């Protein structure tokens, strides 16, 4: 469909851009879980972090946002759960603009994992993982059953880890708990911001492989931010490549290897050989 490969917005004539939101209303894909419509985000001082983003994430796919630091990946992610609000345009989750939704209810349906994990240091693993279900009023029994299930899912034995505090865990274990916490309330959508970026290469590879099989079992819609090319190609259904706050293009991993765009080519080269073009 037309949304598959949006041109860089710069290249589009102004008239076409202005006409777009209306026409997109009519062609909205029924399987689009998230849709960015002409979204821009600027800081209060006017500095743009994201310009004219048009992007659709389909239900059940893993969309990897790839790009160098400062390209707008994390900004894009935070616009989805309304940690940030668009300066212009709309972000639709399940067909509903995030700015019209109650942010609390919106966020409870979206799991969020980040590089620094952000586990609550004053709570045990059990309470960390059970927090969102508890906030949603699940019974204590159901929360406990869910905890067992989630910890087993991410490869941590519940009897060993449930009563530990975050400071008593290794980096890899913390990241697993972070994933378990994000999945605990069974959200249909998962946002991940360089979740494995702070781990050593071996632990990272382990968790990446586990995560790959995990996501096939779970069938969630996932938006995954990374600057690691190998990770992107391994996990992605599609890759959205960003540069300087603009979307360069959306590609399947196979397509992405063939892309002739100079920025993408430079990224490939730098990643594989460590050299500048």
């Amino acid at each position, binding site marked *: 469909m037309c949304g598959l490969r949006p041109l860089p917005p710069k290249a589009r004539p102004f008239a076409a851009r202005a006409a777009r939101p209306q026409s997109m209303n009519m062609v909205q894909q029924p399987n689009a879980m998230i849709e960015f419509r002409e979204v821009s985000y600027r800081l209060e001082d006017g500095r743009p972090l994201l310009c004219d983003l048009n992007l659709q994430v389909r239900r059940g796919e893993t969309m990897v946002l790839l790009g160098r630091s400062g390209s707008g990946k994390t900004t894009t992610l935070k616009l989805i759960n309304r940690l940030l609000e668009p300066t212009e345009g709309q972000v639709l989750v399940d067909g509903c603009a995030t700015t019209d939704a109650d942010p609390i*209810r919106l966020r409870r349906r979206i799991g969020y994992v*980040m590089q620094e*994990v952000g586990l609550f240091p004053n709570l045990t693993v059990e309470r960390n993982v059970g927090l*969102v279900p508890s906030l949603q009023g699940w019974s204590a029994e159901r929360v406990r059953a869910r905890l067992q299930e989630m910890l087993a899912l991410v490869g941590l034995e519940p009897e060993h880890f449930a009563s530990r505090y975050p400071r008593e865990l290794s980096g890899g274990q913390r990241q697993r708990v972070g994933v378990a916490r994000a999945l605990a309330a069974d959200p249909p959508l998962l*946002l991940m911001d360089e979740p494995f970026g702070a781990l050593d290469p071996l632990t990272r590879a382990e968790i990446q492989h586990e995560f790959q099989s995990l996501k096939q079992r779970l069938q969630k819609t996932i938006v995954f931010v990374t600057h690691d090319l190998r990770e992107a190609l391994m996990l992605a259904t599609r890759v959205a490549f960003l540069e300087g706050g603009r979307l360069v293009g959306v590609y399947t991993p196979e397509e992405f290897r063939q892309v002739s765009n100079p920025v993408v080519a430079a990224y490939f080269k730098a990643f594989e050989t460590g050299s500048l073009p």
Partner: protein
Amino acid sequence: MSILQFFWKNQAQVYELTLEHLWLVGISMLLAVSIGLPLGILLTRRPAFRKGILGISTVVQTIPSLALFGFLLASPWLGERADRIAITALTLYALLPIIQNTYAGIMGVDHNVREAARAMGMTDFQLLSQVELPLAMGVILAGVRVATVITVGVAAIAAAVGAGGLGEFIFRGLAMVDNRVILAGAIPAALMALLADLLLGLLERRFRYA
């Protein structure tokens, strides 16, 4: 007559004035915490008030205690009873460290933890009560500890307006030029400050994470 003999002879009065002192400090701290904690939280939510509130409480801190007691003596309802004056003044002195530490403690919470909490769909109240306050509690208690020690000291001046407490011995001893009488007030007050410092310090240690 040694100091110990003096204590022994006047033990009933030492006991009574110590209790009075404790009462002044206790009520003042209770008031200071119940005013200072909400104010400190308010500052984290409305940064615009920060300069004003911290400014006022800093100015109060710089007024010499004797002057503040005298100043309150002239005020309408407060001036009618000595204990009202004393408690008002002590509460005002205790406010600054409590407000400041509440603010600093909450602002010092790791922003990743705060962002995770927001992303998980916590309301502002849940964020405050389940994340920020528990994590800031160590710093807040440090403020309460400092405030308590200050208050035990300043409460000795309360005797100047007739509010009682261990200051009675101190002022009497000064007038009589008798060190034993001064020490009969000073030693229990010092012990009280040390004990409060120790106990609150132990409590504070229970809130260390990371």
